[in-house]
């Protein structure tokens, strides 16, 4: 009896540890994506304010795009992360952010400031505060 209780407690502890570790990992992904959302806004604002060139802005947005894709790949690296609703939501948000940045790169190339301004308001993930 005692050994069964000990086994059950150990299993519970392991499950709790795994859950905590997964939550921490998802939190890290979320923070990274929030930072990339903020970076997109900061790069776009600098361009809209006339402070940065089209060339730099496109290069910087392409780099942000690459970083989002890397984060998406890391998020999808383990099935457990995507199986949770939070993980799935993050993955979808990352995909939307990725698509938005891709469109923004084209808008900057065309010099379409109103479109870029509009995209900034549509950034799907930003820090809470």
């Amino acid at each position: 009896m005692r050994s069964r209780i000990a086994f059950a407690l150990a299993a519970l502890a392991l499950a709790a540890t795994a859950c905590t570790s997964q939550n921490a990992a998802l939190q890290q992904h979320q923070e990274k994506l929030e930072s990339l959302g903020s970076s997109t806004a900061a790069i776009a604002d600098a361009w809209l304010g006339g402070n940065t060139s089209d060339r730099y802005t496109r290069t910087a947005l392409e780099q942000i795009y690459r970083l989002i894709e890397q984060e998406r790949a890391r998020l999808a690296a383990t099935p457990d992360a995507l199986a949770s609703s939070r993980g799935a939501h993050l993955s979808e948000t990352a995909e939307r952010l990725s698509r938005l940045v891709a469109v923004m790169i084209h808008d900057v190339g065309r010099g379409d400031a109103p479109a870029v301004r509009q995209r900034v308001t549509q950034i799907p993930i930003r820090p809470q505060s």
Partner: protein
Amino acid sequence: MSAIADLLLGVITSIGGFVEAGSISTAAQAGSEFGFQLLWAIAAATIVLALLVEMSGRLAAVSRRSVAAAVRERFGIHFHAVPLTAEFFIDVLLLAAEIGGAAVAVKLLTAIGFQWWIVPIGLLAWLVLWLLGFSGIEYGLGLLGLATLSFVYAAWQLGPDVGDIRAAFVPSLPTHHPTRYAFLAVSIVGATVSPYLLNFYSSGAIEEDMNESELWVNRATAYLGICFGGIVSMGVLVTSAMVLGPKHVIVDSYEQAALMLVPVFKTWAVPIFAASLGIGCFGAAVELSLNAGYVFSQAFGWAWGANKPRRDAARFTTAFTCVLVVSILIALLGFDPLRLTLFSVALTVVIMPIVVLPFLVLMNDEDFVKQHKSTAIGDGVLAALVILGAIMAVVVIPLEYFGG
């Protein structure tokens, strides 16, 4: 008069040559993620570096030997093979990271992929090494490096709270992400106290024929130049903390880091950031390559010297050329330059005891430094700090890269 001119030039070029890929990336990340909280790490690392550099110059001026040559002579080639190998490994990684950083700087201005610039930048570094003597390399690149003072100007213009900055010089525990905080502290130390600087500085002292009567010049150059250089790193951290921190931008690329100068320099922000990064990284790449030539030549007893005609120091020339080629090949593998930089500077702290501890033994050996020995307390503190840093690095590097 000449000594004072040498001193001024030495201090100015030390300031210009202080900042490179490692210090820009670690300070920018630390500022964006933890505000001013890691200023103490830059201050501590700067003091340790100033002490070590002064000692290496003293060793060279008194014994007429560089650090590598003295270690080889005192401990023998079998022992010297260990720090030599460790330093070679780190120098090659750092050199690849610096070339990558310079390539990203050109990419920021041209929008052409950084990989395309790696070979041209490597070739340019080799041409500088081939064509210029020590003074041309040291002073030329150091003076150009004064562009990095733009970070100090930016920090000044942003008007940080003096009380907050003063408080940040006292180490404090972070309110979030303790592993990341510790990793950045270790990386800042590794970026600042690069072991290659010890041998580079002592070899430079020999190239410039420094002698015992100029020990005060060595002391003043090391302390003033490096402490003022540390202020440039702090400028990066403060600017990043004040501009990127509030926007919640965590620096993962140089493209993001360039935004920190926008509020102050407006349309000039990206060109100034690119110039600072490019010059800093290129200067460090040239110094690292030159030091590789020094270290190998001094370890194996070959003729060496940037002031010698290249045909008179053929093995020295071959050594720096080979190291440059290996680093270019590593940089071409496509590693992200910023990540490669962070990894390299953190590893630097791990190998630091292997390089620094034998050096501290030398600084207490009258055969080498005569009556100019270091104090036992100072050496003890330095040794303790270096060992503590290495232990911390061994713990936090796996946690940072494999989760913790």
